[in-house]
């Protein structure tokens, strides 16, 4: 049964965190068992219950691959300028401020486009949402080949950055195809592999540039031609999504239209509970300093290696690529560590996990800024990338528990916080000529460590915080129930939250849960009621 109607606030972020039941689009199972025709085991909604990574079978795995590769492509085009900046800055006569501002612009656009993307997916479905964005962004990528001054450079990078909203369509699409039990893993993989595009582009673009140069083009023409590669990828993926993709496991787009726009929950209420929960804001800040610094580093690291160590453009690109490519394992690993820790010590382990990973990332960033020899610098960079990306995964292991009613909006805000952090750190540390990029990295490392401290203040009454145990007598039901007014509770609107509360008892950790079970096995003394 559909839990959240189409158009309900936050419904577009279905499946982002993988804890909520993802019922965005559902169909009635057609008469006769057609589950047999699917390659993977499916549930009653024909969503896959398992994932087989190397399969391209229709519809589930094909969707998975189309979806994450589209997201990957948008990352490639958004950060395609970064490894070529040493050439572009001479062609367009850029100053450090121009380069920094363009970096800020490239990550700011998606703050807004991600919010709009939710509505687009609700209206048109994730397949068209993805295709629209990726194919309408293709002209902006081609525009990059035509610009000849700093203003044009900043404007085009801003416009290309809008395409990062494919994150939303990717997660949304996965949630229509995969069961809620595995949606967390699926979305973590898709997000991590998509983010990898920021690393892959540092390999691809210098390579393409080199090949074009060898064919005889001057440097200033070669980089412009190189931009045709990400642009063509956009068109290719858009066409593939439209021809091979489908919105739902049964391919039935009509049901999507028939459901209508019944808002089950009031947007203002959902927004209110998201905004007034202090934990939301702490995670917005934290995500800004793991995902945000990852995006910033994607933008500055290739130029840093080119200038500071006098490396060839291609070698600088290869090293820079290692930063983004670590996403292939690092982000899912963060989520896994979070889950493993929670199995024994509950939510407190998840919070400690975040703090340890992100603070370590900050320390390695500080080392990276200071390193004066190449091997030390590369080692610091790799360790920094692992810790920062694992922290991203770890944070999305906790956000599902912050609120049940406002989960969609909180996930969206956290994601936006990442982009905001990216813009802010680039503006503060990599735009002014007052200090070098290396010094900027040092300061960024210090700021990461400082801005991770607020996680100690995240306290769940029923589970505790990093330093404090749970408040006595607090229960999950009370925490999640407090998001509903008495009137709403009397109407039974909070039933889904109660169900979630019961399932979330696992966050107490093994030790506490074992103690509770031990008590429960001794039968209570009851006097039978009888007259």
């Amino acid at each position, binding site marked *: 049964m559909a839990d959240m109607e189409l158009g309900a606030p936050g419904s577009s972020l279905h499946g982002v965190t993988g804890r909520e039941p993802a019922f965005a689009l559902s169909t009635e199972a057609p008469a006769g068992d057609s589950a047999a025709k699917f390659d993977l085991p499916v549930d009653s909604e024909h969503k896959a219950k398992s994932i087989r990574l190397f399969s391209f079978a229709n519809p589930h795995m094909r969707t998975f691959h189309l979806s994450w590769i589209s997201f990957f492509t948008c990352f490639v085009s958004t950060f395609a300028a970064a490894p070529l900046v040493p050439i572009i800055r001479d062609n367009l006569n850029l*100053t*450090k401020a121009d380069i920094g501002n363009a970096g800020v612009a490239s990550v700011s656009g998606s703050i807004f486009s991600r919010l709009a993307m939710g509505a687009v997916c609700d209206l048109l479905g994730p397949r068209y949402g993805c295709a629209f964005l990726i194919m309408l962004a293709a002209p902006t990528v081609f525009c990059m080949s035509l610009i000849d001054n700093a203003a044009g450079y900043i404007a085009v990078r801003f416009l290309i950055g809008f395409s990062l909203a494919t994150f939303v369509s990717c997660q949304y699409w996965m949630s229509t195809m995969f069961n809620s039990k595995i949606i967390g893993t699926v979305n973590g993989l898709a997000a991590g592999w998509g983010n990898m595009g920021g690393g892959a582009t540092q390999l691809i673009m210098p390579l393409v540039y080199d090949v074009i140069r060898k064919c005889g083009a001057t440097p200033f023409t070669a980089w412009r031609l190189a931009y045709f590669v990400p642009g063509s990828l956009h068109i290719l993926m858009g066409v593939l999504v439209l021809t091979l993709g489908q919105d739902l496991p049964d391919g039935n*787009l009509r049901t999507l239209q028939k459901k209508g726009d019944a808002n089950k929950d009031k947007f203002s209420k959902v927004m209110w509970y998201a905004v007034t929960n202090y934990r939301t804001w702490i995670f917005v800040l934290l995500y800004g300093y793991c995902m945000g610094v990852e995006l910033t580093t994607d933008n500055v690291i290739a130029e840093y290696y080119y200038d500071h160590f006098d490396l060839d453009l291609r070698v600088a690109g290869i090293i820079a690529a290692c930063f983004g490519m670590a996403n292939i394992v690092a982000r899912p690993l963060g989520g896994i560590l979070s889950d493993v820790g929670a199995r024994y010590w509950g939510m407190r382990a998840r919070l400690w996990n975040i703090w340890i990973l992100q603070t370590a990332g900050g320390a390695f960033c500080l080392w990276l800024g200071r390193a004066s020899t190449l091997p030390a610098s590369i080692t610091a960079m*790799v360790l920094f990338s692992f810790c920062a990306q694992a922290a991203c995964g770890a944070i999305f292991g906790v956000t599902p528990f912050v609120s049940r009613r406002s989960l969609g909006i909180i996930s969206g805000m956290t994601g936006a916080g990442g982009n905001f952090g990216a813009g802010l750190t680039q503006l503060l540390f990599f735009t002014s000529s007052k200090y070098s990029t290396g010094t900027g990295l040092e300061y960024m490392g210090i700021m990461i460590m400082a801005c991770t401290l607020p996680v100690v203040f995240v306290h769940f009454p029923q589970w505790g915080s990093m330093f404090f145990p749970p408040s006595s007598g607090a229960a999950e039901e009370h925490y999640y129930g407090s998001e509903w007014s008495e009137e709403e509770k009397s109407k039974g609107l909070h039933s889904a939250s109660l169900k979630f509360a019961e399932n979330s008892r696992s966050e107490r950790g093994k030790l506490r849960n074992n103690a509770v079970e031990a008590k429960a096995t001794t039968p209570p003394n009851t006097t039978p009621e009888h007259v």
Partner: protein
Amino acid sequence: MAMARQGGAVSMLVLLLLLGACSLPAPAAAGVLLSTLPKALAVTASPKPGQVLHSGVDKLTVTWSLNATEPAGADAAYKSVTVKLCYAPVSQKDRGWRKSNDDLKKDKACQFMVTEQAYAAGARGSFEYTVARDIPTASYYVRAYALDASGTQVAYGQTGPATAFDVAGITGIHASIKVAAGVFSAFSVAALAFFFVIENRKKNK
């Protein structure tokens, strides 16, 4: 199972990186300091201060000879001359990647080679240079280094940052790029519209 696989991939990646990093060249020793070199060459360049040269099209003539203030015979050690195009301070502002450095190995202001040729003692050398197509738009002056037999700089001369001239670099945009970008973009939008219209029609039937 997945975790073991990921852990293995992680350690492989780190190992590869460290191996690669160790095989990279060690940083070189410090080079000659500009402040220790005598300004023994008199260098002139044909462009007037503020004149704009177009890369790929315009030419400049650079000449060098022993400075009149130097004693005759001081240039006995000079075997060859390299002439470079250096960024003027106005083009170095806010651009840390073009910064001058006294250590000539670390100096980034003089990135473009005009010519390198043998030095004729007592004579005036000159060279006519067509501004290369990869010279970016900026202000420049000309500097010449006198090298000894081992290739180390032993003297220099320059036209000076005060008399810098401008170069207007190529944009790199050809008409063919404009056309291609237009065609690809139009195709993208058209393909999207095509699919959307076709599918809507199919749905409404």
